[in-house]
């Protein structure tokens, strides 16, 4: 299959999904960022805390400031195309907002930037892979259902930090350590999770001053973007100590009166592995860290995009069987079918017809004990397939 045909097919499939699948999160986040130009709000955290009217339906903004400013500026720029009804749509909390006759246009315009970051990841995968693996790597990246679902059907912005993290890894591999650090800092300024990876960069076999410069630049860039807000109580509460961030530490082992987070145990184990096997590829640790987090926490569907660029590398370099990937996909989709939110499944089609909102979530058809058993089984299956992938990844020949 020629490269042009791969790209055209990828884009056509994306353009078939972008305008016709809707999850309310895209509306909620765009409501929050719209305050940047409608009310000229600079500190969204304080604003949402104080404004009782908006607190009813938009209680907080849990992402770092750069997300607010960049998505807000983008929305401001496309405002003429969005039209006059856009703001009343943002404030439609009826649960039937997808029935708006303009919803296809809104979704098309709001999700459009994701296409660029998605294509850019494809470009860097293409550039990195050896000649005989380029096509299969690209096909895996562009046509895996995890990406299509999480980036375009759900429509969250995680593809932006995911691209910047991947770019950071790519620049690191090309020995451009300063740029890699800046890219990681920029990624963390959209969502804080890439900071978790700093230690894996630090414990690599590169020269100490290069590693320190990398970490310094990543942290400096991140702190520079949050510095104006650091004294804001609402910012610290919503971003630095948000429920979302705490979610990864939830699973723990009680040891006497002390609770030891399983995340810390796994993370420490991975760091030890990194120190012991420095020649193993960096992407293997990135992939393992995220798969480990997802296996032990109640993660959000869009988080899977943090993993998929590195899963593509694992698919190529570690020759991971497609059935293992299929098992991961199946358990992933089952987890969210059992989430109890119809907008994660059939409700995504509500722009096509609101009648799809009439289908109850799977959990409504099961008893609570059946739901619990199914959730445990699917989470276990996800953990098991992750473990199989991680195991195979660590058996990859050192580079």
């Amino acid at each position, binding site marked *: 299959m020629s490269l*042009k045909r791969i790209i055209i097919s990828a884009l056509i499939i994306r353009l078939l999904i972008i305008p016709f699948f809707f999850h309310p999160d895209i509306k909620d986040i765009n409501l929050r960022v719209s305050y940047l130009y409608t009310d000229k709000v600079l500190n969204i955290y304080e604003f949402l805390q104080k404004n009782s009217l908006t607190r009813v339906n938009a209680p907080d903004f849990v992402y770092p400031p750069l997300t607010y400013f960049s998505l807000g500026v983008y929305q401001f720029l496309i405002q003429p195309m969005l039209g006059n009804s856009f703001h009343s749509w943002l404030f439609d909390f009826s649960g039937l907002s997808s029935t708006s*006759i303009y919803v296809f246009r809104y979704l098309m315009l709001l999700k459009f930037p994701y296409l660029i970051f998605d294509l850019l990841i494809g470009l860097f995968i293409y550039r990195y892979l050896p000649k005989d693996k380029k096509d299969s790597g690209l096909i895996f990246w562009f046509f895996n259902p995890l990406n299509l679902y999480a980036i375009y059907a759900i429509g969250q912005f995680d593809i932006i930090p995911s691209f910047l993290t991947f770019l950071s890894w790519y620049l690191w591999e090309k020995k451009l350590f300063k740029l890699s650090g800046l890219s990681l800092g920029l990624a963390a300024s959209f969502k804080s999770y890439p900071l978790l990876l700093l230690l894996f960069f630090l414990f690599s076999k590169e020269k100490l001053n290069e590693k320190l410069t990398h970490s310094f630049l990543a942290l400096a860039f991140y702190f520079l973007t949050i510095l104006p807000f650091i004294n804001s109580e609402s910012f610290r509460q919503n971003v630095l100590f948000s429920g979302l961030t705490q979610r990864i530490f939830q699973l723990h082992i009680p040891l006497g009166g002390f609770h030891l987070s399983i995340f810390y145990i796994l993370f420490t184990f991975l760091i030890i592995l990194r120190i012991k096997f420095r020649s193993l590829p960096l992407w293997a640790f990135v992939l393992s860290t995220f798969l480990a987090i997802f296996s032990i926490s109640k993660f959000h569907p869009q988080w899977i995009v943090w993993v998929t660029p590195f899963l593509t590398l694992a698919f190529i370099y570690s020759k991971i069987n497609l059935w293992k990937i299929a098992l991961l996909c199946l358990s992933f989709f089952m987890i969210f079918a059992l989430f109890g939110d119809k907008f994660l499944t059939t409700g995504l089609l509500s722009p096509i017809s609101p*009648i799809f909102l009439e289908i109850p979530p799977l959990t409504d058809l099961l008893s609570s004990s059946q739901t619990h058993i199914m959730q445990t089984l699917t989470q276990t299956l996800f953990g098991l397939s992750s473990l199989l992938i991680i195991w195979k990844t660590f058996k990859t020949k050192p580079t």
Partner: protein
Amino acid sequence: MKYLILLIIFIILLPAFVTLMLHKSIGLNQQSENHTVYFYGNQNYTQNFTSPKENLNSLSLRMKNTSLGNKEPVTFSIYSASQKITQLKLNGSNIGDGGWVRFSFDKISDSKNRTFRLELSSLTSTPVNAIGVQVNSQNETALITYHIPSSKLNLIYDIYLSFFKKVLQDPIFIIIWFFSIVGTIIFVNKLKIT
């Protein structure tokens, strides 16, 4: 290539597959709104509508309980000619500050092409805490009717038909979407990729 074609067919047919799980269809779907008409005391809200399908069994109205200030009893009734078909009682606190409110009742089998009158009243509400109904510039209620479908095939046909009608209602979207697809193909074809 086969996988890609299958993927595209799957995406296009996904609504049809999901429709197989459905037990309801949509009849009237009037969603445009222009202003709010309030009802309170002896001032009831009434609107006639003609059901386009059989087996009407619920309808949604776009209603407004400003600042959620109304907690008074509200009565919803449907009449055919002068005969009361169904009546539901609810509380103002069940109505949000701008949103769809669903009223479900026993199915009306012979509802196709029948004209009904819906009536909303709230005797104890006052102009200060009155509940409103959203209407369009022709004073037609923002209203969606739901019906139990006679066949799945009809339902699939209805869903795709209403989808295409909805797409055609927004020419700006069609232009953006069409040029994105055509532009993509032209742009990628002109790229010199090695």
